[in-house]
């Protein structure tokens, strides 16, 4: 069946020249440019657009563009798309229904809807757990029934852009109030952006242009349509979805002109397809030229329903009856009477019916009629017993402000007994609420007040003195205190997302869940995709009555961002995962390095393909032992300290002594935390009396720099601290030939063993580049760390590589370095220590200055030192035929955990399997056997061994 569209000027959003086909549930539908999927479907006579969450009831349109979730559909891989906000465009993927087995009209899961009386509120808390294990069996079935659409398993995303906008006044909502406020703010000199959710600004003025003749944004106002403001955050940031971009808007003032959500009347079967809000019916008629039905019943508690009835009549829809809950007549009643429409006063809807045959009885179907009731006292109603045949029921149960943004900013939304609806209070100074969001409905009042607010917002934004703006009281007369008609057989829905009825709310209160938040959590009212926009008011009223309280006695639930379901891809934007590259990164790539993640850096693990790892690492180790190797250590923290207090400053922080460190010498440094745990290590070189150069581990570089600057700020010592981690590149050239390779490139430094001793530091030039040279021994061979400005890192590396070629120089990576240092039993902070390791436990008590009176962690060490050690880090060896225990394998002592392996590897140079492990102190003596449990559960033996494993006399590194 097709319904011809109404003639112009109906269809203000349509471009009638262009038809757009699309597919819905396998059927081809034709709509017009400007249509939403919902308006096109409705025009084509489709009435069932969705199935409800719990009872799988058929659903049509409740609102249109009202941010309800009634007409959610599936668009390709994307679930839960509101059909009434989905613009019809060319190339739309096939649209499908959701939450149904089979088709929307014949959902084979519909049986559950007939079991409602057996499924009281919170029923799942009361059942499915006895006997034990029941839930494990039942849960999968429940999970399959739950949920709405289907998230495609192989979806992927295009990266979305973010837009940063700045203005004096942001106006959210492009209806008559928003436009009036924006125009006034612009006229007052403010830079204004107006955000409108729909495709065109105008809002209610598009439905009723006569009421709002001036609702056009002025030239000075920047209008952005398709823009949904999702959150107004504490720091004033307004988050707006702008089509496919995420907008971060900085506005000095925000005008909330987001209107109000029309509320359903709560009566039996008020959710049938064909029962819709008056605002939806009027939108279909005026914006999309769709006749919402052929014969309508209109049920209302205010004039808006009457206006809809007049519209329907004018649009050629036959009016079966108009029922108004009020008893006083006004001009609209007269006009309806003049048009020959029967109006029944003091009358409310009692039950919507559908008689679509046997199948309809089972699957449910569109509305076919309505029974009315005479309103009695205290919310009672006496059914009339007559059926009014109709295919459309239009209802207006009043309005609830869509004031979430103001609430995000700190305003309060509570029930107002005079206006019979929620009203804002405590609105912060930079936020202005206007129009229906502020409870105003009368056109002249709306516009006048919005102008004033817009002007005030401009004044506030521009720093002009602002006269205190008295927010107008919400207008009474547009709501009804009790638009609720209980029915003995129930099914009066007040929460469409969650299929909740009057009894559900009453029963939840009876179960003790009387606080608004508890009620929400137990009944799930307001937890669905529409977040209670069409439900909160009715839930509050029913809950209040159940508690024998006035509605204003119950606070509403907190309103948190977002305003409506918010796209995750827009929030994500482009992934920003920064990566740091050392100056030598290109060389590593050229050498075919396999890299590994090290914080923000990528470091060469070894040079070669992953499959070739073992051979490559062995060759690199061999090169360092027998010729020379070179490793990029630019990721080390590099911190420079200058000033008269530099020596004293470092001495007060590091556990190692540095006050009397001679100029030109480097010294191992150990940093503890306040609790005496090892935090970092490195080398401190004294370049001059008042000039120190400190290295830190890659992982702790930032933390150590932060600690130094923090303590400097606290102590106020005369030290200047500079972080050179990024500014300097560094490499370590090590191996017997390293001195020879360097000799040809170094100026100003005497490399002779007696002149440049182990742990000396020197200034000099390497390959013509000013550099700092440190003789260090981490890898156990003669070696030099060379630190130079990062800009020259690549040049120096290349020069050394060229000079070293004749001497068998190979670059080596982190894996080789790990083995080389293990052979020397040098600990890696964070691998051989954990967050709670003391120097004594790590067998590094030697590093702590015995005569020092002050260093970070000293007090804690003194306390901890009074207790016997629980573990000690020792070197161990295993039989060469054994499996290398994976790091973190446990050391088992009796039945208990005695420690763990922190490092282990097979070493050719050391002749077998070597490692470091925490063992009980009773096992720490050289030669003590201990047991290791492999992850497989197998036990292997190991023996505490003297360290270093390689070159115990350290003659190679110190030659």
């Amino acid at each position, binding site marked *: 069946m097709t319904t011809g569209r109404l003639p112009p000027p109906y269809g203000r959003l349509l471009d009638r020249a262009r038809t757009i086909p699309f597919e819905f549930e396998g059927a081809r539908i034709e709509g017009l440019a400007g249509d939403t999927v919902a308006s096109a479907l409705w025009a084509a006579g489709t009435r069932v657009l969705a199935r409800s969450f719990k009872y799988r009831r058929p659903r049509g349109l409740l609102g249109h563009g009202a941010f309800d979730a009634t007409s959610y559909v599936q668009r390709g891989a994307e*679930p839960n798309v509101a059909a009434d906000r989905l613009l019809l465009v060319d190339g739309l993927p096939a649209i499908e229904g959701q939450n149904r087995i089979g088709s929307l009209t014949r959902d084979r899961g519909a049986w559950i809807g007939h079991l409602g009386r*057996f499924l009281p509120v*919170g*029923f799942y*808390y009361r*059942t499915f*757990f*006895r006997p*034990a294990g029941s*839930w494990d069996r039942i*849960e*999968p079935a429940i*999970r*399959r029934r*739950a949920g*709405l*659409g289907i*998230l495609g398993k*192989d*979806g*992927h*995303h*295009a990266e979305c852009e973010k837009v940063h906008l700045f203005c004096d006044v942001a106006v959210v909502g492009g209806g008559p109030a928003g436009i009036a406020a924006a125009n006034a703010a612009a006229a007052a000199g403010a830079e204004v952006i107006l955000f409108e959710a729909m495709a065109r600004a105008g809002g209610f003025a598009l439905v009723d242009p006569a009421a709002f003749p001036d609702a056009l944004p002025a030239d000075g106002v920047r209008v952005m349509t398709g823009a949904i403001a999702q*959150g107004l*955050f*504490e720091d004033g940031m307004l*988050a707006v979805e702008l089509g496919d971009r995420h907008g971060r808007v900085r506005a000095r003032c925000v005008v909330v002109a987001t209107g109000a959500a029309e509320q359903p009347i709560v009566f039996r079967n008020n959710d049938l397809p064909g029962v819709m809000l008056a605002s939806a019916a009027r939108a279909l008629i005026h914006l999309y030229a769709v006749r919402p039905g052929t014969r309508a019943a209109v049920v209302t508690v205010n004039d808006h329903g009457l206006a809809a009835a007049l519209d329907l009549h004018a649009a050629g829809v036959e009016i079966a009856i108009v029922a108004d809950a009020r008893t006083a007549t006004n001009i609209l009643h007269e006009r309806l009477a003049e048009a020959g429409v029967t109006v029944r006063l003091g009358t409310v809807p009692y039950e919507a019916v559908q008689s679509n045959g046997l199948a309809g009885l089972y699957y449910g179907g569109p509305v076919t009629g309505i029974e009315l009731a005479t309103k009695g006292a205290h919310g009672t109603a006496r059914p009339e017993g007559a059926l009014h045949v109709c295919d459309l029921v239009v209802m207006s149960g009043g309005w609830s402000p869509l004031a979430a943004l103001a609430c995000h900013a700190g305003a309060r939304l509570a029930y107002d007994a005079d206006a019979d609806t929620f009203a804002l209070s405590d609105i912060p100074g930079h936020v202005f609420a206007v129009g229906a969001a502020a409870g105003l409905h009368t056109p002249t009042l709306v516009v006048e007040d919005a102008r004033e607010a817009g002007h005030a917002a401009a004044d506030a934004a521009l720093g002009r003195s602002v006269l205190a703006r008295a927010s107008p009281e919400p207008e009474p007369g547009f709501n009804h205190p009790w638009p609720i008609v209980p029915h003995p057989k129930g099914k009066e829905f007040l929460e469409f997302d969650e299929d909740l009825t009057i*009894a559900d709310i009453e029963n939840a209160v*009876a*179960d003790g*869940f009387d*606080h608004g*938040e*508890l009620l929400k959590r137990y009944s799930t009212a307001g937890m*669905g995709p529409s977040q209670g926009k069409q439900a909160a008011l009715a839930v509050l009223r029913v809950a209040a009555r159940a508690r024998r309280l006035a509605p204003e006695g119950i606070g509403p639930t907190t309103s948190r*961002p*977002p305003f409506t*379901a*918010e*796209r*995750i891809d827009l*929030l*994500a934007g*482009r*992934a920003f995962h920064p*990566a740091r590259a050392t100056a030598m990164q290109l060389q590593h790539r050229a050498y075919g390095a396999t890299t*590994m*993640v090290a914080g923000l850096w990528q470091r060469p693990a070894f040079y070669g393909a992953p499959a070739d790892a073992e051979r490559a690492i062995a060759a690199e180790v061999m090169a360092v032992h027998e010729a020379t190797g070179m490793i990029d250590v630019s990721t080390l923290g590099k911190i420079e300290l200058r000033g008269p207090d530099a020596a004293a400053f470092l001495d007060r922080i590091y556990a190692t002594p540095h006050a009397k460190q001679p100029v030109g010498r480097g010294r191992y440094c150990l940093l503890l935390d306040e*609790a005496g745990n090892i935090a970092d290590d490195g080398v401190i070189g004294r370049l001059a009396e008042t000039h120190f150069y400190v290295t830190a581990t890659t*992982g702790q570089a930032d933390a150590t720099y932060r600690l130094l600057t923090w303590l400097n700020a606290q102590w106020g010592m005369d030290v200047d601290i500079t972080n050179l981690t990024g500014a300097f590149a560094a490499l370590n050239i090590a191996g017997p030939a390293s001195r020879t390779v360097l000799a040809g490139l170094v100026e100003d430094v005497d490399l002779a063993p007696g002149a440049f001793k182990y742990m000396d530091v020197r200034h000099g030039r390497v390959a013509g580049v000013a550099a700092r040279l440190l003789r260090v021994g981490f890898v156990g061979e003669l070696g030099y760390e060379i630190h130079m400005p990062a800009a020259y890192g690549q040049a120096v590396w290349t020069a050394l590589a060229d000079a070293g070629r004749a001497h068998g120089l190979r670059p080596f990576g982190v894996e080789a370095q790990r083995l080389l240092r293990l052979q020397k039993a040098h600990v890696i902070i964070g691998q051989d220590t954990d*967050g709670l390791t003391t120097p004594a436990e790590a067998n590094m008590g030697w590093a702590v200055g015995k005569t020092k009176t002050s260093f970070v962690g000293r007090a804690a060490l003194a*306390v*901890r030192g009074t207790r016997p050690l629980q573990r000690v880090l020792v070197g161990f060896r295993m039989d060469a035929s054994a499996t290398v225990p994976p790091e*973190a*394998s*446990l050391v088992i002592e009796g039945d208990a*955990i005695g420690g763990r392996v922190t490092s282990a590897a097979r070493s050719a140079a050391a002749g077998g399997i070597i490692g470091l492990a925490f063992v009980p102190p009773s096992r720490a003596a050289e030669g003590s056997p201990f047991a290791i*449990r492999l*992850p497989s*559960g197998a036990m292997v033996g190991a023996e505490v061994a003297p360290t270093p494993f390689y070159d115990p006399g350290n003659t190679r590194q110190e030659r």
Partner: protein
Amino acid sequence: MVLSLLRYGLRRRHVPWRVIPPTPDRFKPSYDVVIVGGGGHALAAAYYLAHRHDITNVAVVERGWLAGGNTARNTAIIRSNYLTPEGVQFYDQSVRLWRTISNDLGINVMVSERGHLTLAHTDAAIRTMRWRAEVNKHYGVASEVVGPAEIAALCPELNLSHEVRYPVLGALYHPPGGIARHDAVAWGYAMGAAARGVEIHQMTEVTGFDIDHGRVTGVRTTRGTMRTGRVLQAVAGNSSRVAALAGFRLPIRTVPLQACVSEPVKPFLDTVIVSGSLHVYISQTARGEFVMGGATDPYALYAQRSTLEFKETLFSDMLELFPQLAHMKMLRQWAGLADMTPDFSPVMGLTPVENYFIDSGWGTWGFKATPVCGLTMAATVATGKPHALIEGFALDRFARFDQIGERGAASVGS
């Protein structure tokens, strides 16, 4: 139980299932125990005091609505794959209690052991995970380091491509890990405690304590003073503030922890997925919503506000793991308050005030401990001596620098 639904449906009227008792109009002349805080831990302690120790003259005092603090704001993850012997044994006991909790309390807490994967993106993370796995196994907790192939089998939806900034190298797989219906736990304990005579006073804020010669004798509230012999403080997120009212300090820094939930969709994700490197975690509820969160906010704060930055960072990282989520929409965001301790372990047991016991320092890891906290704190309050499982968590361990380091296992998504 299905029969009970049938019976229910065939009756004419709703027979109230009194889950939450109304707040009594006035206080009793005195209480044996007053529990400050009305969240999961507090209610569990009240329940076990009554159920296991026959101490029923108990009042639970809650500033707001029942279980509306962190019990209502957490992401309902249960697991026991911690790092320290103290932690593993403690949380393992909790997991055991979770298994029978629905039948013990007579309310379906919907405990769902869906498996828990902590992803490793660096070799250092793999090492820590192997350490955790080995300690876990030692105490009989199912826990294993798995590689990409096993991860793919457990969670085919996960993006295991190497074309991302931080490829997944492996994971710690913990089969007993899962989720529960967080509110129902608190309601169940409230129901059970109330049935045994415990009073629950909602909307009653504690303003101070009567302390006589170092011993607590009364609790001052906005509704009057309660006389009592013993006090248990269990107020996650406000531990330092309440302890200050009792006159002692805690080594706790309170920071916001944010989370969010998406719209409901059909089953997509079975396992609980955590990535410490990307600071994100996600699970799908029985209703079909994705519950997601990240790291704590980087500054101390008592405000329970939401930020835009939280969502932007979270989703930017989340889409690395699950690009499909780009088609989803989020529905709600919120914040809770995390009481962080220096060693990422809780503070439980005795305090400098006599007869004043504390259950605090629950950082981002409190929900899963709800049953075992109730059990051990009830025993501690009843006997005046710390329960064996919580001896290590004593407040005075910080003065001794005797920490229980769980940083490596308790961080994001705990």
